[in-house]
């Protein structure tokens, strides 16, 4: 008995070792290094002097860093919940289709997801171009006949990037929701139908509670992903008023790669890391609690 337990432990250890080693080397070690780096005044490459918490104090007093935090949170608000809800709505619609039509529609929604971000940027920069973009035929009349530069007008920037992001990534959410919807046994709906439950009642009493775990999952994935927003904002803002639309990862990029301040960039990265951990744990617990009710 005892022997078999020990051999089980050994087997478990052997099986887990590759993961633990890789996790340690590729995640834990760099993270510890990053925290260390954030306490020095090191450049991007090379050693620096110990400066204690100076970088953190500097961040706290840096107006640009607070702009970056607010922009990141603003973007999360604009993108996470909408992309989850729209994903669910599209999935509900697609789920009602049958046969090849369903495949075609699903593929249509999924197609943008496979595009690299640079292509997404090119497509939408072209569509929205102030002088020659096709969207100006719609935007022009709404703006009193004047063409409008969407990505160079600060109040419109984040909503526009959020719109493009939702268009780009919605396919993945739809896929997850469809997998969830297919897991709900059709017998439940049949029974409900026999009992005379309306469509709305079926949705609120059957679909919504049963799809809730998937919703929490999608929401969490989106939250973590969008807190790390960088590519789209960087590309669309490039050459423009970058400070007004800066997000946290962009701030880290700027400090590290543009002005060669590795220590300060690491400090900002630690703050972002902490923010992601806190927010995602918090929201996961909150949503789980609600779902268990």
């Amino acid at each position: 008995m005892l022997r078999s337990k020990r051999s089980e432990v050994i087997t478990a250890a052997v099986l887990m070792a590759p993961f633990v080693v890789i996790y340690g080397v590729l995640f834990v070690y760099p993270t510890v290094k990053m925290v260390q780096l954030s306490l020095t005044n090191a450049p991007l490459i090379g050693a620096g002097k110990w400066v204690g918490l100076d970088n953190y104090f500097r961040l706290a007093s840096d107006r640009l860093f607070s702009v970056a935090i607010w922009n990141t949170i603003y973007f999360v608000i604009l993108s996470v919940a909408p992309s989850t809800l729209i994903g669910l709505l599209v999935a509900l619609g697609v789920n009602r289709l049958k046969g090849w039509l369903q495949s075609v529609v699903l593929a249509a929604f999924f197609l943008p997801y496979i595009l690299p971000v640079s292509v997404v940027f090119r497509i939408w920069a072209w569509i929205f171009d102030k002088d020659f973009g096709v969207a100006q035929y719609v935007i022009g009349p709404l703006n009193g006949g004047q063409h409008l530069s969407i990505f160079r007008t600060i109040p419109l920037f984040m909503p526009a990037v959020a719109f493009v992001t939702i268009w780009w990534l919605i396919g993945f959410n739809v896929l997850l929701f469809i997998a969830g919807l297919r897991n709900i046994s059709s017998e439940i709906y049949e029974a409900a139908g026999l009992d005379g439950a309306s469509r709305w009642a079926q949705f609120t009493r059957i679909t919504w509670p049963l799809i809730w775990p998937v919703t929490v999952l999608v929401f969490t994935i989106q939250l973590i992903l969008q807190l790390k927003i960088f590519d789209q904002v960087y590309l669309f803002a490039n050459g423009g008023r970058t400070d007004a639309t800066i997000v946290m990862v962009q701030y880290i990029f700027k400090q590290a790669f543009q002005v060669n301040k590795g220590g300060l960039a690491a400090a900002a990265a630690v703050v972002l890391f902490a923010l992601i951990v806190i927010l995602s744990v918090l929201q996961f617990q909150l949503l789980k609690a609600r779902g268990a009710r």
Partner: protein
Amino acid sequence: MIRKVLYATLASLALTVSAARAEDTIVWWDFLSGGDGVRMKAMLEEFNKEHAGKIKIDATTSEWGTPFYTKVQTATATGQGPDVMTYHESRMPLGVSEGVVSPLTPEELAAAGIKASDFSPANWKAAQGPDGKQYGVPLDIHSIILYYNKDLLKKAGLLGDDGKPKGLDGAANFDAALAKLTANGVVGLSTATADNATMWRIFYTLLSQQDGQFVKDGKFLDGDNLDKATTAIAEMQKWVKTGATPAKTEYPASIALFTSGKAAMHINGVWEVPTMVDLAKKGQLFDWGAIQIPTFYAHPATWADSHSFAIPDRKGNPVDAAKRKEVLDAIHWFNEHSLEWAGGGHVPAYLPVQESAEFKALKPNSDYVSLAKTAVFDPVSVLAGVASPVYDAAGNYVMPAMNGEMAPADAAKQMRDDLQGQAK
């Protein structure tokens, strides 16, 4: 006997080694894409053909701006990287502070036939570090110029008998000319009002024409330089406010406005000359020309930068002396052949080419070559240069001011405070 065999083997080994040595490879990194990239590839091919069996340049192109410079920085820090690379002169102060570039001694420059007197003093000096050492050898001077549509200028009475614009010097005259053009129903002046680099180049030109200094003794826009900056920004704002220049225009769109005949004038870099030349060759462009940016204030001056060559300071694995000699010889070769590079709109940095009859015959380059004499290179600061915080600041402050979203005085002040804050 055995000894004989051994010697023979050694001798043949030595031969193979020297044979291998016979064709050396120079590893080359650049950031030249588009028309510049095509032109440089042709020159590299020519170089390799001419030096076949002796030297071969193995060139790699990376993305312009921050990606290129980050790659160079990380490579050199780990003893990797090329034997020679292109480097913007404006970026030299930061490069020196990062320890990325290796100083070139007067002896090795002289041995390769590279002389300071073959370059204009400001151009040569811009490739020096704060320590006074030479870190690069310029290949060209590139700047912004004023492209113009002869037909549209003629209609507005702004074209002289020599086919060049007239009456554009002086801020008031320039504005009046824009008004005439706008009255004719055309766009007076198109420029990339949604591009920070273009904003910086125009702003720095107008600032320099007033003798304004962007950085002096580590202080940004100190004293009356702030007022001069305000004046420059206010002038740019006026072009948009009066409707002569479309607001928030992207870089490609600003070119399209000109090439489609909608805009009478266009301010952009010399590197767009091939765009116009190619279109004209296909018969798809009107009669056009290009001149130095008009003198708005006290005297002519134009922002300028240089593509230069530098040898990286690879940590623990420096480029050896023999390779350095070959690299410098190659750099000299490229300067001697820079007439071909001038086809990309650039002004050759190498004076023997810049002053040659062949270059003088090259149109439109020779119409704006005068800018080289009054070229003002980017401020010497680790915060300046291409893709730098200074360029960003132009996007964050000059751009909204030009597009009417900020008062010129506020823009100048905020730009000063921002950069001064980053200098800490």
